């Protein structure tokens, strides 16, 4: 299973730090299969991440990789892409990373419609610090900082990104990892700010506090609660997978290059 994508890994850095049953490894493989299928030049691919479990991914990958500060992956990526638009910039973030401390950066990267492929790995919890409530922890679910159940309601990260100006949004899960590969490819092919929400499982910090006995139970939950366009949600926990929105809008680095050309021509 691994040999087909081993060339994209710094194999000397393995094994990874993720817990048994964690979904981030599955999601990493799905993303790498997208890059392999797209036949991207490893030298031109940049992986940017913030801080948290999922943000450790770039360290294992054989690209130009940068593990930044908590919540700041998108502005680092913005600097890279704006300075060198020819580079293929992927940004991996966790749910707390991208929607709490990095929420403002997410809104503005989407507003600029800068050509980044952002992947939010949503495991509903702060995993690395041991299971604190995140902005995407469902209402009434338990974390170490919501020991009596989460009083706050989560938001939908794709709806926020869409409202802010992103031009591509999609959702898959660790269970639906082949779909995830396809969606990451579509996100890459969109010229503009693209966001893919990858729902993951954290059995250690989330599952065991929320009545999931095994990691497999969490994967089955993903399977049972996902529905596709055209289908009806069965209950409150259900969520749509696949492409959620796609539209056309001017992309930031194209617009900036047009400005440079206009100025060169004295217009």
């Amino acid at each position, binding site marked *: 299973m691994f040999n087909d994508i081993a060339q994209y890994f*710094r194999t000397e*850095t393995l094994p990874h730090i993720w817990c048994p049953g964690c979904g981030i490894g599955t999601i990493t493989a799905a993303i790498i299969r997208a890059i392999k299928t797209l036949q991207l030049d*490893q*030298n*031109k691919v*940049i992986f*940017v991440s913030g801080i948290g479990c999922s943000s450790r991914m*770039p*360290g294992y990958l*054989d*690209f*130009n*990789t*940068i*593990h*930044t*500060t908590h919540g*700041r992956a*998108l*502005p*680092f*990526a*913005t*600097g*890279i892409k*704006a*300075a*060198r638009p*020819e*580079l293929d910039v992927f940004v991996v973030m966790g749910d707390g990373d991208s929607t709490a401390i990095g929420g*403002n*950066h997410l*809104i*503005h990267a989407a507003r600029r419609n800068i050509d980044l492929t952002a992947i939010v790995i949503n495991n509903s919890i702060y995993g690395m610090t041991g299971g604190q409530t995140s902005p995407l922890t469902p209402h009434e679910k338990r974390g170490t900082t919501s020991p009596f159940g989460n009083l706050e309601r989560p938001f939908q990260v794709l709806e926020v990104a869409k409202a802010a100006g992103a031009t591509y949004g999609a959702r898959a899960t660790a269970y639906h990892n082949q779909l995830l590969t396809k969606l990451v490819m579509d996100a890459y092919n969109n010229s503009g700010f693209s966001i893919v929400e990858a729902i993951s499982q954290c059995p250690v910090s989330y599952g065991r506090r929320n009545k999931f006995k095994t990691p497999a139970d969490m994967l089955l939950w993903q399977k049972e609660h996902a529905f596709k366009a055209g289908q009806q949600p069965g209950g409150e926990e259900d969520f749509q997978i696949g492409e959620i929105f796609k539209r056309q809008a001017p992309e930031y680095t194209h617009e*900036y290059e047009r*400005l*440079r050309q206009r*100025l*060169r021509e004295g217009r």
Partner: protein
Amino acid sequence: MNKARLMQGNEAVAEGALAAGVLFYAGYPITPSTEIAEKMAERLPLIGGTFIQMEDEIGSMAAIIGASLTGVKSLTATSGPGFSLKQENLGYAIATEVPCVVVNVQRGGPSTGLPTSPAQADVMQARWGTHGDHPIIALTPSSVQECYELTVKAFNMAEEFRIPVILLMDEVIGHLREKVVLPEELTIVDRKRSTLPPGDYIPYENNESMIPAMANFGEGYRYHVTGLTHNEKGLPTGNPEVTKKFMQRLTQKLNPYLDRIQLVEELYLDDAELIVIAYGCTARSAMEGVHMARNLGIKVGLFRPITIWPFPQEQLEKHADRKYLVVEMNNGQLVGEIERIFGYKAVERLNRIDGELITPKEVLDRIREVL
């Protein structure tokens, strides 16, 4: 022919940055530094560069680090409150050794403070604002001419030593308009780039120079950058031995180059019984005050640290066994360095923290008081 021009301090910073080869600016509007951003917004797209107004100061600092990793000289500018926000990623640039220049046009503080008044209250923030043990370089211009020249030097030092360099200005110098003579020839330094094949490249090599060669993102050298303590390959580690080596190199890497980093100006020091120490806008009043005192026959001199961090201790120690008067627009910040060197009994202070400049007359009066 030397080109003399009337220029504002902030404008001279922008011109100096362009002369140094800056091609990327990310910033957020804040008084009294905004003219730098405005100038860069106008000029950078004309020369193939990029200006981007970010959503906040944190993002601005992040963006210039990202751009610099692709091989582009990068700049941001701010003032006190924004400088506080930049500290997080300033520390990241220090730990990952990414060259960049950060301008702080100081205003009164703490908090929102006095947005349109000068101060020199970020001296310690420039040194220790970000968490953890770390090296830093901070330069303090006293004239518009120096805004231009020190911006070029700031880029040169950032590139040569792989470190963020802080240009610590103040509202008076930023908004002052005076004559600038653009130098006919400038020394421009670019970062040392690896000439090794990518497979042999060690991004954080503990080499003799203590400054590893860099490689641009996207050019075949696929390496890892992290703010976690890392080994020579750039990969995270918690190993105490590797951590010790990394921290030793990081915190000592400027030491072999101090003679080139620590810039000072000295005036009438040979026979001076009292040495006035001042920097930035305050050095202008201090110099005038020293001239006035000399005219009265008082044996007083001026020591102006142009580089305040790392503090030019050895240069000052050459003038031991005198009295010292440290003049600064804060409640006493750089004075701690001088007290550390000579003991607090040898050191007097003149401070002002009301947003008003210290006048030459005040300096003269204080000189007479302490001598």
